[in-house]
């Protein structure tokens, strides 16, 4: 496999996705603080580089499975902001008609197949998507996202083993933000690195700086190539941090101040913006333009969400089965 470095256009596309994620997240939190939106919201602020650098290499045909902390993954993969915002607001115009909420975002036409609220459960489902692809002889890959804490649950083990014995085209992406709710990595996890666990399955395990788009890009590039070539799964551990605690309202007392400060210093977003300009992949003006366009997009999304109607009570009887319940 010949691996290539991302060109400037790709690098800017990554920036664009990161900006979309970051702006949407900032604005959701703003709306919550202002009381315009109420929900359990699991911000991925700080982790935006991971799905951005992966998704630029995926097509709409490729599948994504993610978790409650998955808004960033969904936006990067193509869930339209309007549909996201309306879903978060519990409106009938949301991608799931307001029935799913932030923990169950779905949008099949962009390959956004399943979002789960159950730790670990994204992975077995990803195996099934990979199996579908394999049986149909397609070239799709499936990206399965999960957290560091999730690497300690049984479903992780069963899925990586199954994907390995069946050589499924699945990329297991552990977004290691160093905490599982309030529990620090080493309190729950015996492996020095989660990527070490790939050895249990005879598959590649790669540890990368999840705040470095180039590192994530190239790890994903190899994994995608391997998957598309029918060589089986890869485990990628992307080390990162979440700036807004487990969910909005979590004040983060359990995070040592020094660790938090260090993480903020490593905030991938400003770092990457500066790097792009510095290395002349884009001008500041060009990036300002992207920012402005995205701001407009989010404005529209919020307005759409706010002005949309709530679902009708009858919806509780619909979609339980194919036919409405009595």
């Amino acid at each position: 496999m010949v691996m290539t470095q991302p060109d400037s256009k790709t690098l800017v596309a990554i920036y664009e996705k990161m900006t979309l994620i970051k702006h949407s997240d900032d604005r959701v939190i703003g709306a919550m603080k202002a009381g315009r939106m109420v929900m359990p919201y699991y911000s991925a602020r700080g982790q935006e580089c991971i799905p951005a650098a992966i998704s630029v290499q995926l097509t709409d045909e490729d599948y994504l499975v993610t978790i409650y902390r998955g808004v960033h993954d969904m936006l990067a993969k193509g869930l339209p902001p309007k549909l996201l915002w309306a879903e978060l607001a519990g409106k009938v115009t949301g991608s799931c008609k307001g029935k799913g909420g932030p923990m169950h975002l779905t949008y099949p036409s962009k390959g956004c197949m399943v979002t789960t609220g159950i730790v670990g459960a994204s992975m077995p489902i990803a195996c099934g998507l990979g199996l579908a692809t394999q049986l149909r002889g397609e070239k799709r890959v499936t990206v399965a996202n999960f957290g560091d804490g999730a690497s300690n649950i049984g479903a992780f083990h069963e899925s990586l083993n199954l994907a390995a014995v069946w050589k499924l085209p699945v990329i297991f992406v552990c977004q290691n933000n160093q905490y599982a709710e309030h529990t620090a990595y080493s309190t729950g996890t015996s492996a020095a690195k989660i990527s070490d666990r790939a050895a249990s399955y005879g598959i590649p395990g790669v540890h990368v700086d999840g705040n470095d788009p180039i590192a994530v890009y190239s790890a994903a590039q190899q994994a995608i190539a391997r998957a598309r070539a029918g060589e089986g799964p890869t485990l990628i551990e992307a080390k990162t941090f979440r700036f807004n605690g487990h969910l909005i309202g979590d004040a983060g007392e359990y995070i040592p101040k020094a660790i938090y400060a260090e993480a903020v210093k490593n905030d991938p977003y400003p770092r990457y913006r500066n790097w792009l300009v510095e290395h002349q992949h884009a001008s500041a003006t060009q990036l300002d333009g992207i920012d402005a366009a995205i701001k407009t997009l989010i404005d529209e999304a919020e307005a759409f969400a706010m002005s949309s109607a709530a679902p009708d009570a009858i919806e509780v009887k619909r979609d339980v089965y194919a036919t409405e319940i009595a």
Partner: protein
Amino acid sequence: MSETQAELSPAAAKAPAKVNMIQALNWALDDAMSADKNVIVFGEEIADPEGGGIVKISHGLSTKYGSRVRSTPISEMGFVGAAVGAAVVGFKPVVEIMLMNFVAVCMDQITNHAAKLRFMSGGQTHVPMVIRTMTGSGFQNGGQHSDFLEAWFCHTPGIKVVMPSNPADGYGLLRSAINDPDPVIFIEHLNNYWTPGDAPERGKLIPLGKARIHRPGKDVTVIGYSRSMLDIPPVAEKLAKDGIDCEVIDLRTVQPMDMETILTSVKKTGRAVVVHEACRSFGVGAELSSRIHEALFRELKAPVERVASEDSPVPYAPPLEQAFLYTHAELEAAIRKTLA
């Protein structure tokens, strides 16, 4: 692909008059796989190199259909979840959980995912999969290999529960379960596997959600499913000699329950007895009994009786296994009680 093809297959003509459940289910899988290439089958030991399933229900399928039929690692969470994922993109997986108690290691994929993805996605996705599993006391398999747990799934909106009692129903219901757009748990009974019954007509589907009147009668409605349909008919015949005319209903689908057939019958007889192997309390019998009381309180001549197993784990020693399960005598007594 349409059913017509299967209906016209030459196999139909050659079918023997009597077959057992194993043969019927094997035909159902085979016909479903040949009718629709999206039907895939996996589970522990189910491919031919591993023997085609522990009671050989999937015998011959992997040889015929190749990689659409796979033996899995012992990873129920993993492979049931894989069925969910494949179903979401249009496959119709039929997965086998070797014995029903093992659902306990993969409830999450069944109840939190398979059953709910349609709803939580606002109808964008759905999960047309079938989980086949088997269970039943009477084989000295003890506390962890014998339970009937259908009530757990009946109480899980989004999933259907099908429990055939005879080979012809087994075939027709499994075909319908595979075609159904929603997840179905299909529960087989070890005691029923080797009992010969009328051969199914290949290609003939039996709709889900419809009970079958096994024996028409006018005095009392006796409702069973799965294993209890081996016990009710002989007791009904015995009582017939004493002039007690039982109407025997085989639920076939436990969730959704065919209340129309049930209530029509009980309206006529004014009496009902519900029979299942699962332990009594908080079982399917409770729901059925409540619904009948609720709907026909004024018409009922006696309270609905429930006949079921002890509220205990399934014991190992044969005399205890017998003590666990209801007896024909208890069933007879319950029916007579409604007429007292």
